[in-house]
Structure formats: structure tokens, C-alpha cells
């Protein structure tokens, strides 16, 4: 799950959407704040203008008594919560609906009515000397406070839903594109590992860019598959075309060998030519067989096989040859090895190739161990020797077709053995691992066991 979130976080659409959301929010907030400040300022100006106008209205009163009456009249109709009027007459009498008092904390507006003597909230007051007294008019700033609430409401009602919608849209897009990118990645992995039939096949819901990339990859894979098939066809055709001439050469050599008048030297040459021809034939056979397996020999012929039987057959077959050439061939088979799905003949040939490789590339006295074991990663078939081994940097190369180590150029062999092993292992879905046997080479083929429910036993 964490990995999925991390993957999502790396995805381009999500990052873009998040960036846009942040930008949009900042711009909205700045705009809202600016209009709040401007509105507040113009409200305050309006209040100030209103107060000046009122003061000017009172200034029209001809005497202090008239002013007091005017203030009283107006105060009677006015709520001090909104507008506080206070006139301190020259005779020290107070008129109006409130008094403005001052203490250490600052100015306070006090109501003159009995119900609510103190008034809370901010007021803007204007005071001036008039008719020998002091006239003070204060207006509540509660309207401006209300403005703040209005702006907060605007923020909550407009910006938050926008952000939520943008975010969920971004996550949806990111998830979708992450899925598509994963599909492309898996296809490329399969193409890289040699499965040229892999295709992206972008669906109708794919975004335009990814769909285009997917389509291009499919076109590329198609082209590659066709050209590989063409090359295979050509090499297969060449091999087939050459088989008849090779057969004829074999026939001519056989005829030549039958001539009784042949001098011993010539007979010797004919024998050598025949054995060289055998080598050519065996390389051709291996190449054709590898090509046939790679071009997708159907796995329908696979049956559950006992690797134990296979190893026993092969070890028994090679034991005399190994001991004649001065090697020790050991077999170790763990108990209860589960069956694997496979082609008996191909797997026997795989094991034979590994044993022959070991016999051919190790000096007299070397020990060759064929082992069958059950490990957590699967059923491990291994052939280990105590010979010179393969340098680590060469371990990929030796799996290539016709590749041979420099020091092996003088020993017989086609350079196809390990390539054949790797092709057969891949056909069986088995992993091929070359390890250092310290000293020597250890080749492991790791099979997946047949699921317990489908064990049928080997074909009779």
C-alpha cells in the first residue's frame, strides 16, 4: 500500500493537479483578502462620512437647549447598539442614549437605558465642542464584523468544494494513468525477456498521450516479431536446404570409405572428414531444435514428470562414461520430490547437456554432482563440478548461442549446450542460475512443482 502511495505521488498528473490546486487557492485567498480589505475600508469611510454629516446636522441648532432637545429627540428613536448619541451640556447635564466614558483601558460606550447598561463591540466615535458643550456620536462597527463572517462564508462555500473536486479528480486521473503506465511497463518487460507476442493494446479510456505511446510500442513489437519470424524462417530454410547436400556429402564419403583400393592415408582422411561431418550435423540439429522450441513449441505436450526418474536415468546412463574419463559422478536426490510439468525428452536432453558440459570442461579427477532438492523457491535440479568454473563476467555470455570461452575453443563441443539448456528451461518456466561452486561451476534449474491438486503421475 505504501509503495502504491509512493508510486502515486511520483505520478505526473497528481503532481500537476496538486500544484494547480495550491496556485488556485493562493490566488483565490489573495483576491478574497484584498476585496475584504477594500470593502472594510469603504465601509469605514461611509461610517465616517455619516458621522460628519450628523454632526453637521446638529450644528444647525441655535442654542445649547435646542441642541439638547434635538439630541434627546433623536436619541429616543435610536438604538445605542447601533448609534450612540451623547451631549454634555454646559450645565454638566447629559443628553442622549449613551455616555462615553474613559478609564485606563480606553473609551467605553455606556447605555443610558436600564436594560443593558454596557455596550460591547467596537464603535467609531466623532466628538466635537458645540454650543459650549461636548457632542459625541459613535457608530457601532458590528457591520464590519458581519462583513468578516460573510467573507469567511464565501471562502468555505466556494473554495473548499473546488479544492475537494480538483483533488479527487487528480487522484482519479493519477490512478488511471498509473494503471496504464504499469500496463506499458509490464508489456515492455515481457518484450525485453523475449516474449515478442506481448502487446499494450491501449483501451478507449486511455489518455491520448499514453494511448499513442501504447500504440507505437505495439507497432514496434509487431515489426520486431515479424522480422524475428522472418529471420527464423530464413535460418530454418537454410538449415533445411543444407541438410540434403550434407546427406549427399555423407553418402559420397561412405562410398569413398567402401573403396578397397584406398591407401591408408586417404582412408584416415575420409574417417576424419566423416567425423567432422558428424559434428556439422549435430550443430545443425541443435540449431534447428532450438529454433523450433523458441518459435513456441506447444506446451500442450507437457505431462507431469518425475524428475527423480529423469535424474536416475541420466546418471545411470553417464556413470560408465564419466568413470572411463576419470571423473566422479555423484547423484543426490532428496526424498518426496514433487512432479513438474514438462517434456521428458527435452528435460533428459537438458540434463544430458549439463552432464556432458561438465565432463568436457573439467580435468581428470574432477567431481560432478547431480543433485535434486526441494527448496522454498521450487524444485532445484543442479549439476555442479569442481573444474575451472566460468568467470562471473562471462556467465551471461555462455548462455548465448554458439558462444564459447576462449580456453574452450580447443575442446570439442558446439557452443550450443548451455544455450539449449536456457531455451528448454525457459520453455518450462524454470529459472536457470549459474553459480560459483568454489571451485567450479554450479548450474541450477529451478522448477515450479505441479500444484498438489493436479498430480496425475507420469504417463505410462
Amino acid at each position, binding site marked *: 500500500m505504501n509503495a502504491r502511495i509512493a508510486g502515486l505521488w511520483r505520478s505526473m498528473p497528481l503532481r500537476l493537479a496538486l500544484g494547480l490546486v495550491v496556485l488556485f487557492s493562493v490566488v483565490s485567498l489573495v483576491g478574497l483578502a484584498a476585496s475584504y480589505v477594500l470593502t472594510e475600508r469603504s465601509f469605514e469611510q461611509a461610517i465616517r462620512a455619516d458621522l460628519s454629516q450628523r454632526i453637521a446636522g446638529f450644528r444647525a441648532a441655535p442654542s445649547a437647549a435646542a441642541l439638547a432637545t434635538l439630541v434627546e429627540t433623536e436619541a429616543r428613536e435610536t438604538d445605542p447598539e447601533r448609534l450612540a448619541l451623547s451631549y454634555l451640556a454646559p450645565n454638566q447635564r447629559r443628553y442622549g442614549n449613551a455616555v462615553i466614558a474613559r478609564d485606563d483601558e480606553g473609551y467605553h460606550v455606556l447605555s443610558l437605558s436600564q436594560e443593558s447598561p454596557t455596550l460591547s463591540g467596537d464603535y467609531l466615535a466623532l466628538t466635537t465642542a458645540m454650543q459650549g458643550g461636548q457632542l459625541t456620536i459613535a457608530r457601532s462597527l458590528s457591520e464590519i464584523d458581519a462583513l468578516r463572517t460573510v467573507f469567511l462564508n464565501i471562502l468555505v462555500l466556494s473554495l473548499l468544494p473546488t479544492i475537494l473536486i480538483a483533488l479527487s479528480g487528480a487522484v482519479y486521473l493519477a490512478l488511471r494513468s498509473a494503471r496504464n503506465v504499469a500496463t506499458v511497463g509490464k508489456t515492455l518487460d515481457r518484450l525485453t525477456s523475449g516474449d515478442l507476442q506481448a502487446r499494450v493494446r491501449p483501451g478507449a479510456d486511455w489518455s491520448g498521450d499514453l494511448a499513442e505511446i501504447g500504440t507505437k510500442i505495439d507497432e514496434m513489437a509487431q515489426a520486431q516479431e515479424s522480422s524475428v519470424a522472418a529471420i527464423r524462417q530464413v535460418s530454418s530454410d537454410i538449415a*533445411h536446404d543444407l541438410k540434403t547436400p550434407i546427406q549427399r556429402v555423407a553418402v559420397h564419403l561412405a562410398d569413398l570409405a567402401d573403396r578397397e583400393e584406398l591407401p591408408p592415408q586417404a582412408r584416415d582422411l575420409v574417417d576424419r572428414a566423416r567425423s567432422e561431418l558428424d559434428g556439422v550435423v549435430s550443430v545443425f540439429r541443435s540449431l*534447428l531444435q532450438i529454433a523450433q522450441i523458441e518459435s513456441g513449441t506447444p506446451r500442450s*505436450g507437457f505431462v507431469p514428470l518425475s524428475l527423480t526418474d529423469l535424474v536416475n536415468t541420466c546418471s545411470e*546412463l553417464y556413470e560408465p562414461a564419466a568413470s572411463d574419463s576419470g571423473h566422479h559422478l555423484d547423484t543426490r536426490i532428496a526424498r518426496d520430490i514433487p512432479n513438474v510439468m514438462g517434456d521428458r525428452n527435452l528435460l533428459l536432453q537438458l540434463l544430458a547437456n549439463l552432464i*556432458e558440459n561438465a565432463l568436457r570442461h573439467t580435468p581428470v579427477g574432477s567431481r560432478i554432482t547431480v543433485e535434486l532438492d526441494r527448496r522454498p523457491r521450487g524444485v532445484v535440479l543442479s549439476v555442479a563440478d569442481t573444474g575451472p568454473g566460468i568467470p562471473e563476467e562471462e556467465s551471461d555470455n555462455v548462455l548465448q548461442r554458439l558462444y564459447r570461452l576462449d580456453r574452450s575453443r580447443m575442446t570439442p563441443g558446439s557452443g550450443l549446450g548451455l544455450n539449449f539448456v536456457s531455451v528448454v528451461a525457459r520453455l518450462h518456466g524454470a529459472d536457470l542460475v549459474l553459480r560459483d561452486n568454489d571451485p567450479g561451476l554450479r548450474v541450477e534449474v529451478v522448477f515450479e512443482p505441479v500444484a498438489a491438486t493436479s498430480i496425475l503421475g507420469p504417463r505410462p
Partner: protein
Amino acid sequence: MKILAVEDDATTGAFISRGLREEGHSVDLVTNGREALIQATGGSYDVMIVDRMLPEIDGLTLVKTLRGAGNQTPVLFLTSLGSVDDRIGGLNAGGDDYLVKPFAFGELSARVSALARRPPAVEQEAVLRAGPLEMDLIARKVTREGVEIDLLPREFAILEHLIRRKGRVQTRTMLLESIWDINFDPMTNVVETHISRLRAKVDKPFDSELIKTVRGAGYRIDA
């Protein structure tokens, strides 16, 4: 015996027919599938040698058609393909044996003789004999000139195989197929080493050689 060879390549065809004639067989050679069908339905042959890739009617169709018409003549397929699938395909079509080009004549000759005498002598006896050698199949005991020979199970199987086919050459690949059920040709001389182990026990302590090497072909125990 009377053999029909169907091979479109003239050199290979001549090689097959000349070799088989030298061994005393009568050989008819035809070069395409249509002609082969006419010949095979007309004459009665002991063995047919059929190339899988033929002009006009290919080898598989030819043999399927013959089998469909009730012709049971043993067929040896020749092929230039040569993989397990082709072998199984050929045998499924009604072929009795299968040989991949290029082949040594000894291999062809040994397989043709094996086919002609199919099914191999099914001897129900409990004891097999070859000259001075006796094989008790029930007690799994081998004696030669009264001396008991201790054989490993696989050596016993090889000896039994050779004695049951007395007088006929068994090639390396025939032994691999029959004894180990292996249908590929190992590069190492594994069969030779098994035979030499067997010889060391069966022949070496005695005067005469029972298991003969046929040069360029295989092994034989004389009748």
C-alpha cells in the same frame, strides 16, 4: 526382402537402393508420392522407406492413405527435420520407425531389418540362449559355460535386448531408444561405455567374443 524406397533426392535414393541391394534385398526406388502410392498398392513389399517431404503427395499423407486402405507394410520415415514433435507426428501418421537425415547406412540397414521382422521374436521362454550363454529371466541369472555372471540391472536389459534380436544389428540409437527411452543422440559415447562394461563381464573372461561390433553400424549377437 522386397523394399520400396520413396526418396526424391537422387543421390540419397541411389545410396539407399545400392546399399540395400548389396545386402541382397530387392529395391524399387520411386521419386514422388503419387508414384509411390501406385507402387505400394500394386506390389506387396516387406518394408517401405518413405521421405517425409515428397513432391505431389507428401510422405505423411501417403502413409495415412495407405493405412486407411488397410495396407500394413512397415514404414520407416526419413526426414530432414528431426525433432521430437516430427518424430511423434510421423509415428502417429502410421509410421513404424523414424530416421533423421543425414544417417549412416548401417543405421538404415539395421532399422530396416528390425522393421521387417516386426513384431520382434516374442519368446515366452523363461530362459534365453545364445551359444554358450544362458539367461534365466525369472531368476535374473546369467551363466556362460556354467560360470555365473553377475550383471547390473541395466546390463541385464542390454544383454536381453541383444539376445532377443539375435543375428540383427542393433545401433547405438536403437539401444538408446529401447533401453533408456531416449530419443536424442548424446555427444558422448555413452552406449559404447555400457557395452564395454557388459563385454568385460560376458566376453572378457572367456575365449570367444559373443557381442560383435559391426563397423559403422552397431552391435550384434550372432544366432
